[in-house]
């Protein structure tokens, strides 16, 4: 009986046989996956082509894949319109891009502010650690639609408990999701309300990742800092944070990516309202593609979203990269 564990002492003939077997295994896994991936590449390629056309699936268009004719070639026209156009869709694109950036750049720091200290605190807890982790992680397992409905009931202007608290404190109730005039720090209340709901659903995921990272920080480094007279806060900021920087990078990139792709929770809670205050790019892309049948325009918007996400990710990777290991 030969096993892979014996490979180190095996004869060259056996090694060669193992190599062939490995190669076959790799081929049998990767080739079907490549075929599977090629379907996605075809779809992406089609989207890439579409963004240069004023394409609507309802129109016959030209003889080749319906391109041309009543689905005319517009070149970079969509992108020029996005930047300088005054059409409804161009204005809405700029609004939704702005809202998406607000959403993503608000969610990331707020998420880190919640998850990192919480993970640190949980790491110090000695009893019921698993229970706490389970409780905090549960919203992640809940469907976005369910989360949206829960928060909508809390935000209900008449029966929601947020307004009930405000009333009890003698304050004036707020139409959290439907008042376009109400705002805070230059951002509409509806956007803050959606951000809060999104954070509630999402923070458990990053918290678990941070807990894993904190568990990997060598205890002796913290003890050495303590012997040198560092306070808990100094240990956290000067020792722990630098050591978990690769995890921080991962969390920042993933949180930013998912924030740029936010869709379902906003669609259910506000559908982009009030007065487009929560209209984000993915929602706008969806509406243009499937409600207004402007597939070409939607494809161009998707390409812009891809570029924005790529640029932000590259910047994050440059800023947060580490040049050392421990």
């Amino acid at each position, binding site marked *: 009986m030969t096993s892979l564990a014996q490979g180190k002492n095996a004869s060259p003939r056996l090694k060669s046989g193992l190599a062939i077997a490995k190669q076959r295994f790799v081929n049998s896994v990767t080739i079907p996956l490549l075929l599977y991936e090629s379907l996605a590449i075809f779809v992406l390629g089609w989207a890439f082509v579409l963004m240069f056309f004023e394409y609507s*699936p*309802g129109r016959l268009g030209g003889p080749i894949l319906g391109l041309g004719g009543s689905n005319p070639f517009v070149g970079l026209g969509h992108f020029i319109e996005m930047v300088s156009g005054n*059409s409804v869709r161009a204005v809405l694109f700029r609004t939704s891009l702005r809202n998406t950036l607000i959403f993503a750049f608000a969610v990331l720091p707020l998420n880190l502010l919640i998850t990192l200290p919480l993970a640190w605190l949980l790491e110090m807890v000695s009893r019921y650690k698993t229970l706490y982790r389970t409780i905090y992680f549960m919203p992640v397992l809940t469907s976005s639609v369910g989360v949206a409905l829960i928060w909508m009931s809390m935000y*209900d202007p008449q029966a929601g408990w947020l307004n009930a608290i405000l009333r009890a404190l003698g304050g004036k109730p707020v*139409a959290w*999701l439907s008042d*376009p005039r109400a705002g805070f720090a230059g951002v509409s209340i509806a956007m803050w309300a959606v951000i809060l709901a999104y954070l509630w659903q999402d923070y458990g995921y990053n918290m678990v990742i941070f807990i894993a990272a904190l568990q990997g920080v060598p205890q002796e480094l913290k003890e050495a800092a303590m012997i040198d007279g560092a306070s808990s806060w100094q240990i956290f900021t000067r020792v722990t944070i630098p050591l978990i920087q690769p995890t921080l990078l991962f969390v920042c990139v993933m949180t930013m990516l998912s924030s740029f792709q936010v869709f379902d929770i906003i669609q259910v809670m506000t559908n982009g309202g*009030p*007065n487009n205050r929560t209209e984000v790019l993915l929602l706008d892309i969806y509406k243009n593609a499937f*409600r207004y049948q402007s597939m070409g325009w939607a494809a161009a918007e998707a390409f812009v979203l891809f570029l924005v996400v790529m640029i932000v990710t590259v910047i994050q990777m440059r800023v947060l990269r580490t040049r050392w290991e421990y």
Partner: protein
Amino acid sequence: MKKQVWFVMALAVVLLAACGGSKTATSEPATSEPATPAPAGEATAAPGGGEKTVLRMWVHTNNAFNAGYEALIAAYEAAHPDVDIQLENFEYGLYIQTLQTAMPAGEEADILQLFGTWVAQYHERLAPVPPEVMTVEQARQTFYAAPIGGYIVDGVLYGMPQEFNCEYGGVLVNKTKFEAAGLTYPPQWKTMDDVLADALKLVQKDESGMMSVAGFDFVAADPISASFLAGIKQRGGDYWNADHTGFTFNTPEARAQLQWMVDAVKAGVVDPVVFNDSTNFVIDAFFQGKVGIGYIGSWAIALGKTNYPDFADEWDYFILPPIQGDTPVFVADSGWGLTVSPHSKHQDIAWDFVKFVTADVKNATQWNITSGTIPAMPAVAESPEIAAAEPWVAKMLPMLPYGQYLGNMPDRDRVMYEIIYPHILNALQGVETVDQAIEAIDTEANSTFQ
């Protein structure tokens, strides 16, 4: 060597599966009769030994509608034992996506349910109605002007309507609240001022001053658009230019209608921040006891009964008086109806079935009663069966002939839901002035022609 042969065979299976997967790439229907429907027009063995011609029919998921279709399919198949019509239904959003992916690929079903106003956008991918089935003139005589209007594009008929999609003029009225407020019931409204007067007495606010019951909730997208366009017409204006190549929203009539709405809000019949499309949508709010008079199409009746079976208040559906003058001119979309794919191998049978369902008075009556919709045919709307089953239709009968087709807009949904409704809502909420809203509607709506 054997392993390599096996590997190549496995790859071939994967490739074949990938190539053959295009039929399911458009998502499976939510519920379909057979798990694997036969391709359009394919002949299959009939129980009696003969061959059946199989036709597929796509509809969106609406239990009441589809119960009506199933009964008529059974009746048609009984009369035509050699035909098998397979009904496949899709959730509304998925249906639109499926149409958009299947039609360019030529893989749509033989018979397609379409909303009439969509026909102008899809007509290049639809089969015209053969003259021997029905001519344009016959269609105009058979159906009301509003529902048939959408099915005629550039003088060509592309399908037949089944319902009159009337969003104008109908309101849900809460009898319990009327009586509690000491108001006359049933309401005896002669003018819209009478409606507003009643509405003001129905309004309730909580201790913090927030409106808890709206007197007259007209702040949803469809009623706002419908009453805005009807108001323009009833004031003698029009939102189309002479040759229908542009909109004319920046008019005194449009401004006057919007001002009327703003004044109604200022009078206090509804708070548009608390009652609108996204918060306290009129149907939900009405059947939760938060609305006295709720402006909505009669389709809401069946929906309310289904979704709120335990609603204890007594209520009914009434017709509003004209906004201006004595003539209730209004515009309406073309409602749901049936069309045929140009790729169907049996268009003759498909059209025969479509005519059987939509243009036969008995069958159309049965479908309208089952689906709870307003008939597209005057002959059906005026029938005693409809009067008995849908009493609100009898109330609407004097109004229906005044309905005009909305007109083929280049981007109807965008104009209605992203231009007219948001700007009017802004004006009602005080975010824009009437002038700003009207000018924005005019500019933005005309930009959809570019």
